[in-house]
């Protein structure tokens, strides 16, 4: 069984469906047989990684899809054993620095040195006349790299540039230090538009032979658009949501309710509590819910953001300014402090007072 997200993931550049110009540029890049270090950024669910893999496919052929997982161990200076997964193919490997915690600098440096010390031997693509003397290293979630690690990377990038190409994937460039930005080719992948997403959903629906209660194209499109909007233009979310919806019934009712994420519903409930019933007892109740959300590793900043937008949606227009200003204060505190529960509570209390 394979999820639609994986099943209908384009494997090659020419199958990519939106952002034509970016695709064309990547194709041009790959055709030279070499490319500079890349920093690919954009919101989640916009197809960053899909594009990166398609580019690699163009460069190295289908070998890049032969992935294997290695568990690497690394002993830190304090003698703690650190384990992390490295996904690799003959031509590239992929790491996620957030697996390594605060030791990412040492681990990445070590790993890259290791790779760089051996020159890539390339037999398969020799017939094409291009030899790839480098190995590609994909760094996922590059924005979670510590400053320390980023500073170390900048040196590594120059030193080993003959043997290694880095592709950094990140949601935003704001956490990435300028020296790295200047050493990489920035590729921005924006979120797909609503119509692009609905087009993709439509394609999937046709390929899966889904039955709809109404067979009119324009009516179906309305459902797809609803899903696209609801998923805030995150293609991954949209596809998963669509698959979930289509699982519910043999024939899909076009008027069907979308299935919202559980934690979003919980946050909606918090916002309802804050809006309708401001009291000290409710604050205690909300605190328990916050704890529950945090226990499920929902990042505190996402909780705050979602809650604020939920509140803005249904509060009176003269309160909007206050709420946004409160939200920004506590968002700042969240990134400064370490125990997020204090700040979430502070936000809830202030918001209650502002709304009362």
């Amino acid at each position, binding site marked *: 069984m394979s999820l639609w997200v994986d099943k209908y993931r384009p494997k090659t550049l020419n199958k990519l469906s939106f952002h034509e110009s970016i695709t064309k540029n990547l194709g041009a890049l790959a055709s030279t047989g070499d490319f500079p270090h890349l920093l690919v950024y954009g919101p*989640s669910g916009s197809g960053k990684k899909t594009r990166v893999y398609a580019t690699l496919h163009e460069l190295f052929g289908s070998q890049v899809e032969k992935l294997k997982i290695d568990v690497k161990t690394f002993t830190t200076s304090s003698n703690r*054993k650190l384990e992390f997964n490295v996904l690799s193919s003959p031509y590239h490997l992929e790491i996620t620095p957030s697996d390594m915690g605060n030791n990412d600098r040492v681990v990445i440096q070590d790993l890259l040195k290791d790779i760089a010390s051996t020159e890539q031997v390339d037999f398969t693509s020799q017939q094409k006349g291009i030899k790839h003397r480098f190995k590609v290293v994909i760094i996922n979630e590059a924005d979670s790299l510590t400053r320390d690690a980023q500073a170390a990377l900048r040196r590594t990038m120059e030193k080993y540039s003959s043997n290694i190409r880095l592709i950094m994937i990140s949601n935003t460039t704001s956490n990435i230090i300028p020296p790295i930005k200047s050493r990489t080719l920035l590729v921005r992948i924006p979120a797909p538009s609503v119509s692009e997403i609905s087009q993709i959903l439509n394609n999937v629906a046709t390929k899966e032979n889904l039955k709809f209660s109404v067979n009119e194209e324009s009516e179906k499109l309305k459902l797809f658009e609803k899903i696209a909007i609801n998923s805030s233009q995150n293609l991954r979310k949209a596809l998963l949501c669509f698959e979930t919806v289509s699982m519910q019934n043999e024939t899909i009712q076009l008027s069907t309710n979308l299935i919202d994420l559980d934690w979003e519903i919980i946050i909606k409930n918090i916002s309802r509590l804050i809006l309708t019933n401001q009291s000290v007892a409710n604050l205690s109740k909300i605190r328990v819910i916050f704890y529950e959300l945090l226990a499920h590793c929902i990042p505190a900043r996402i909780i705050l953001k979602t809650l604020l937008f939920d509140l803005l949606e249904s509060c009176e227009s003269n309160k909007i300014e206050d709420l946004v200003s409160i939200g920004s204060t506590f968002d700042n505190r969240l990134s400064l402090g370490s125990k997020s529960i204090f700040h979430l509570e502070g936000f809830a*209390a202030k918001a209650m007072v502002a709304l009362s």
Partner: protein
Amino acid sequence: MKRKIESDNDIDDDIDDESFDFGECYAPSRTHKSIGKVSTPAPDQPWVEKYKPQSVNEIAINPTKLKQLRDKMNGMLQQGSPRILVVTGPSGCSKSTAVKLISEELSRGFVEYNELEDFNEFLNDCKYLIDKNERFVVVENLPNVFYSETLKRFRQAIENWLYIDQNLPPLVICISEFEKKFNENNHEFFNIENNFNINTIFGKNILFYRGIEVLKFNSIAKRFLTKPLKQIVGREKVFKNIRQNNINKFMDIIVEAGDIRLSINNLEMWSKFFSKGMDSTNDYKKDEAIDLFHAIGKIIYSSTDHRDLDKSEQLNNNINDILKKYENLQLLNLSILENYSNFINETDFETMEFISNKLSESELIYKFDEGKDVMIRSTRVGLDENLISNKKFNSITFTKNFNMLREANKVSRIIHQLKGSPNFQTSFNNINLIDGFYVPIIINKLQYKNYDRIGGKFKYLGDSLFEEEEPSQQLEFKIDIKDNADDDDELSDPLEDSDDDFDLTINDNERKPLPHESDYEFSDDSEFM
């Protein structure tokens, strides 16, 4: 192993041979004694040994507590219920002395566990102490519960004792609870290392079983402690040369501790120094440490100390006292967050906003020396005028922070495991926030399974209360995903179950004993009732 029990008849002989290690009252040295006999004190014995109570009436303890204990122990003997009595309290509050003397009064005495023996073997041997040989089994020294294997075995032995279907002698466990300042490495967690109490020792579950009861002792109140000390003063020659008001002054200091053993020891040392012309009165300041709930109580209700000073001075001094006496400020801060809202009026938004804002602000500057007390101070200030008006007693609850961290650890472990599989080639947050919810639903529909959200489902859904927890199918789900991964993509290495080698910040044994909610019991001489 001194103890051999061949048959019931042999036991009596064994006792005469001093084969049982019978407990002494609160002396640190180990001596063998036969049951009920009054030993004549040697003149050079330490006073704690010399003046130890010989009968129940001499015990320095609140008479009501003593009656409670006697009733409980009598019940154990007569009805066989509860099977296990856990007596807890701070050190030196006459717990074990009372238990031992009462057991001699009610039955033929007691058998005491020696920490060098294997606990399970000891309990097994004790099972024969029934019928005409019936006597109390007293466990004062626990096996080395700081080692997780031993702790596991200890808990198992206790569970077995509770469930075994036969007559058993009454078992009394005495535990001196204490709390230690958190050290650098595990400051985040509440475990047996830094909080040695019944919750961390037995774990949450055992204490809810039938057949186990807990009796809590408080430190000895001044008026009960003074009496035996005065008797000692009257009987020791050394005090003849010391002026009465010097003695009284010193006694006032040492009774503060509420620890009889400590007080007598201090008295002995002081008198020795004093008779040599050294006045060490001021060296025996009481141990001022207070426990978490006491500290919270002081912050919420303020204390009556320093009443002679003006308002702001009083406030300042009270907080300084707390800071001096309680060290684990991080835990204190979290507990304040958990509790402050129970002590302000429903509609008192001003106070609510003030305190919550200050809590959040001071969390930022907590790391700096100058800012570490801001949270406590502002809570006190906020609550000073606005404490809830009706005098209803609100219980204080323990922070949920540690539970939360534990759960979060579990969830992130599950997700990190999934992340290795080719089906989940996306970021941690994506797996958790989006896939975590949708994928199980899709699989459930496709394969008629009943999986929960990745990482376990939410216990709270908005304003509805706890949902009935169904047995989670999380583990199976993980395996399932792996199987799929292998079917789909024969190129991926099979993932090893990395349950064991994942770096857990809390291990299994420390997981259980988190007290959800501990009601705070005020001590006898509470200052803020």
